[in-house]
């Protein structure tokens, strides 16, 4: 994007630079909000990870120890699971973004006046409890559920298929859940594409396909990138869906973090695991952005 001049010309003739004031008005609440309710709690979490165990007063001073980190580094299965979770997150983000793109395209360019309505229709199911929706999902997919009954009835399979309680079920469910959300940044990006560019393209005898690849895709790329990372980042630490449909083999890293908080009352170890996950995800994102950045510049 071209960086328009941000500063007012020197001879603007105003006594006080109004943007300066606006700047502080905007940044102070942001700084306080983020500092107090995000940075500070996370610092507490990091501090917690150096604690020996969850005994005594929560706020009492304690002698820091690296015992928790030693435990994490010494347990191969945790790292393995972190790797698997990252891969799963990558897969989910990729597929969800790809599947969301045509939806965003439809809403941005083909839905016309009804676009707002169509958009909301996509989001309304999320105002139903996720727990209940997954419960219904499970009813459909379990061994005596609708899908299996139909398959067996049609003779396509003799025994019911194991559609649930495995890693695949987790991935599919996550993709399913993320598609409408992944669509939003893409839609926002498409929203600022001047439709006259499309008109110009077809005036120049470009086919719809060429129009997509040469005009829409590059211009909506920032939205695609945003969508990808928006899905990837939280999915690494996902734990609810694996709990509900993952079964024994579908655990993700988030589940073991949660286990230490909620099942073991070992908050310090849970905190250490979280810190490691945060660091890893950040690293992956930084690497990812490095890879993507050059293309973004080219697209502009």
């Amino acid at each position: 994007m071209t960086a328009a001049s941000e500063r007012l010309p020197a001879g603007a003739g105003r006594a006080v630079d109004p943007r300066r004031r606006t700047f502080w008005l905007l940044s102070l609440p942001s700084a306080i909000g983020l500092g107090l309710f995000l940075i500070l709690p996370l610092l507490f979490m990091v501090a917690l990870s150096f604690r020996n165990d969850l005994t005594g007063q929560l706020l009492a001073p304690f002698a820091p120890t690296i015992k928790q980190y030693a435990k994490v580094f010494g347990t191969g299965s945790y790292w393995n699971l972190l790797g698997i979770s990252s891969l799963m997150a990558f897969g989910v983000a990729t597929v969800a973004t790809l599947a969301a793109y045509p939806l965003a395209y439809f809403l941005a360019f083909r839905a016309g006046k009804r676009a707002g309505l169509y958009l909301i229709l996509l989001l309304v199911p999320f105002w139903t409890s996720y727990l209940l929706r997954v419960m219904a999902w499970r009813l459909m997919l379990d061994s005596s559920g609708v899908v299996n009954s139909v398959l067996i009835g049609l003779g396509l399979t003799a025994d019911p298929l194991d559609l649930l309680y495995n890693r695949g079920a987790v991935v599919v469910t996550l993709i399913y859940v993320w598609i409408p959300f992944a669509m939003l940044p893409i839609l926002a990006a498409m929203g600022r594409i001047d439709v006259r560019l499309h008109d110009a393209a077809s005036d120049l005898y470009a086919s719809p396909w060429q129009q997509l690849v040469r005009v829409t895709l590059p211009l909506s790329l920032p939205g695609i990138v945003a969508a990808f990372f928006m899905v990837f980042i939280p999915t690494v630490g996902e734990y609810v869906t694996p709990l509900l449909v993952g079964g024994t083999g579908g655990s993700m890293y988030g589940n073991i973090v949660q286990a230490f908080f909620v099942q073991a009352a070992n908050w310090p170890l849970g905190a250490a695991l979280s810190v490691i996950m945060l660091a890893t995800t950040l690293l992956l994102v930084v690497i990812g952005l490095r890879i993507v950045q050059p293309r973004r510049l080219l697209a502009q």
Partner: protein
Amino acid sequence: MHPRRSLSTTQAAFVLLIAVIVAACGGSGASLSPTAGATEPGATEAPPTEAATEVPPDQVTGDLTVLEWPGYETADFWTDFGGTYKNVNVSFQFGSTDADIYGHMVANPEQYDLFHQYTGWLQFDVDQGLAAEIDTSKLKNWDKVPDAFKKIGQINGKQYFVPWDWGFSSILYRTDKIPSVDSWAVLFDQQYKGHLSMWDDGPGAVTVSAYVHGYDEKNITDDQLASIKAEWTAQAKLNKTYWVAPADLESLMNSGDVWAGYAWQGSYAVTKGAGTPVAYANPKEGRNSWVGLYGISSKTKNMDLALRFLDQKLALKTNQNLVNLYYYGSARQDVMDGLNDPAQADAYGGAETQALLKDTFSIDDPNILQHTNFTPDLTDAQREAWTAMWTEVKASQ
């Protein structure tokens, strides 16, 4: 510039306005009201006769906060207190497991007046000074609780907890898929690969292994723990899923996905009541039994009110609800004895429910309780090691 609107502002504003109105009509912020429960209305037992100088119950005011398991805040479970002390505000906050409850107590002891903890975790509460000693002379219903239960709430010789609910853990299995189950080892049986379900709990897993191999639960050695871990890592391949809430297991049993699972007795009653062909095993190693107890926070400012709450927790209707509606055992002897008395069928929701309950608690077989193993309290080291073991089992899949 051609505007691309993803949503019209007026549209959005309208939606939100309606949402605010809906919220206002939906009721807000009121504490749970005991007299308007979702299922049975609370019938009041005659309030305990008060001495002349005491304030009559319906003029007692105050606030109580209970750290409870989700679901147990239902009015059915404190209907006597609610009906007697109409002007006391009871509110509930939640912990979803024993570890969670313990964690909340450590993190925030001033926030709660009472908390609900189960056997195995009681020692921690006492060691951390979280539980206050309970003056049982103030509990008029204390004599309804058998000595064996009273003892479970005693740590280091002092009464820190009041027992309330109890039950069994055993194997629930489908009789149409598995002819009979006589040992906990069925959970490791290759034959039933993909149709087994274990409870998602480390100490629970150690307990099962201890029963199967005859280990001493109080003295699991490192070697034993390592072999337990290997055993459950292998078992995971046979396991369909680990259940967290009983309803999960019940639904899996009903659908036929799971044929045998670690289960509490309530699941037996529920699945049987749903018409599924099930049985609740009496393994040769013996069933497991656990007790739920209430403690008073050592930081409470409402000791008197808390004691009254506990007293009413032991009142008749509350305990009948516990048994009839939710198929849990009650610490009151007379409520459990009544299951055997056909004349009292109505108090248990009818003859059919009474029979189901009798069956669930194996009232007819005195041998059961004799062979039942009770959950001992864990030490800190055990908790740390056993939960870590279980988490590693889950992580290595």
